[in-house]
């Protein structure tokens, strides 16, 4: 059994390529109460679908700008690269992300502080 661990409070949705992810999905997840959203794809230049990850990256960067304007911490959304053989790296990214989110505190949308 693999001995690599990461925090148990992350939930996973499978898509074929990070480029399938519409910023709307990320916003929807935040609105539904997720404290953060991690988009993970293949490394730049190593995309299983040629260049889908670049598209995903651009979209997420734009989305983070938009979050700022909405007054929501852009750090709640993260995009990073993990290949199928990089369990350690994935673990590290998730751990760090969870730590960052803990610092930010609960998602104000979930707390019902804001209405969307």
């Amino acid at each position, binding site marked *: 059994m693999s001995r690599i661990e990461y925090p148990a409070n992350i*939930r996973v949705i499978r898509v074929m390529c990070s480029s399938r992810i519409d910023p709307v999905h990320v916003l929807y997840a935040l609105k539904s109460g997720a404290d953060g959203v991690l988009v993970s794809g293949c490394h730049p230049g*190593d995309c299983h679908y040629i260049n*889908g990850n670049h598209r995903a990256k651009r979209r997420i960067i734009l989305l983070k700008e938009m979050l700022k304007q909405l007054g929501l911490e852009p750090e709640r959304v993260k995009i990073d690269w993990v290949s199928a053989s990089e369990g350690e790296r994935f673990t590290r990214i998730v751990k760090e992300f969870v730590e960052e989110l803990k610092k930010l505190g609960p998602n104000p949308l979930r707390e019902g502080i804001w209405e969307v």
Partner: protein
Amino acid sequence: MKARIGVYVCHCGTNIAGVIDAEEVAKYAATLPDVVVARDIMYTCSDPGQNTIREDIEKHGLNRVVIAACSPKMHENTFRKTLESAGLNPYLLEIANIREQASWPHFREREKATEKAKALVRAAVAKAKLLEPLEKRELMVEKSVLVIGGGVAGIQAALDLAEAGLKVYLVEKSPSIGGHMAQLNKTFPTIDCSACILTPRMVDVANHPNITLLAYSEVVKVEGYVGNFEVTILKKARYVDEELCAGCGACADACPRKVPNEFDVGLSKRKAIYVPFPQAVPLKYTIDPASCLYMKYGRCKLCVEACPRGAINFDQKDEEVKVKVGAIIVAAGFKTFDARRIPSLGYGKYRNVITGLELERLSNASGPTGGAVLTASGEKPKSIAFIQCVGSRDLKYNSWCCRIGCMATLKQAFLIKEDDPDTEVYVCHIDMRTAGKGYEEFYRKLREMGVRFIHGVPSELFEDSDGKLMFKVFDQATCHMIELKVDMVVLQTGLEPAEDVERLQKMLNVSLSPEGFFLEAHPKLQPVEASTRGIFFAGCCHSPKDIAETVAHASAAATKAITLLSKGKVAVDPLTATINPEVCSGCEICIGICPYRAIQLTEYGGRRRAKIVDVLCQGCGSCVAACPSNAIEMKGFTEKQILAQIDALTEG
């Protein structure tokens, strides 16, 4: 139709159940809306496991199945077949990955892992409800294969394919097939003569009725898709009529123009009209337009006079050949690292610093010195030092291990010692890597033969006034600084991607790894397939390999192509995107986005609309997220399905 869902929670032995309470997850699943049965099963992928699902489909009239088990990468296909055999559309399946995503990473937090498994099952059930049956489309295929590159990989693949009855077009860019193996002297670890084992195969290629050999040619355009590629090949003018040329060489004898011979890595001269080496296949002479006197200055034509068959034809033009093939095997090989990039090692400056490939030519009986390894002044070297990993395992140059350098050095050192046991041989290495059948034994033998292995590599070489080479190296094994003065230094340069890979990559729409080698669809389970269907990789263009590995890889690629084409038709995966022409605004944004050029413009009701060619679509979903009109839907990953999963996961 109302969804009737069956949920199966797999124990995977203790892989899942050792951490997650599978029974509890199954009980929980039973409470979810539309779930008709929910069970936990020891091994769902086993025969009894699959039978349980089949029986339930029949008994409970299930029309959706959710399996909570390992990654869909493992068994999605297995379970699709289970559904199909029970008369259910195979795409009415959803997998919740509770092994890689829950039991493994949270093995110390049993309760949290179980909670997470429940959430994943909840999301899978929510998605399953929205699944729709999808139909595979069948496509007729062309029973022929294009092989790009005629090294040992391309040769092996072509012969295997031809033997299986497929038509093969073997395209080699240089005037002869053979690749690097034709340049080698002996091969490790058995010290077989490289040409003796390769040339019979080259001749088989030339004679096989199913193989069309297009040497001195290049693929310039590839269109179409799996089963139906349309390929344009540029056959470069040799200025020699291949039908008439008998390979006698009278022309080359007469030709006054001498230039460095690429085949001998520039160590010998060839004529402007030449064959690269005597056993070339096809044995047809070629005029190199860059050095031919007539072509450059309009005067000479001595070869025309000399040729007894009137084969020389200066009016010959490049020719385009178009072929249709069902599959493509890329076997474009490698090139060696250019040692000039590390100036401190003196290659190109000090005359007695040579590369491993040059040593192959020097030690070869048909090479420039008739097999004598000589220094620049024509003497037999009394001492030789090999320097390993030149350009390899070095973050400044190539990060990877070239895989064959250690063994190539051992082979060359063996041949030198065998020729004259008194020659001093030093091998300066980072560490010797000799994994492979009979390789470690060979290494031991060389130590016994008195080759000195030094655990360290020098960073700089100096030339003495007598032409000898001096350097210092710290031996980590003895913790001593060693100073050496030798007659000859051999730089074992690494293997890197061939010149042309980026052009090939773009033309074929396949991926490259960051190193520039072709990227396979899966590093373990699909080591020869490209992620674009119908395209396969063979040999060193995929990653550095020795000959045995290259041959095995090439045979694997051939087998995959044979399997693909043997039925005469292929099924098109229905997990593709589709555009609703009623909603599409014809903005063309998706056309530029699609990495597979799968989207085209068409007419719909008198308007311009985008349309997806399903066989080309690989289902990445890029276009779906990009379309400003929300006109594109991704089968199997629809907007509704993804939102339903988010809802299910953020609930509770």
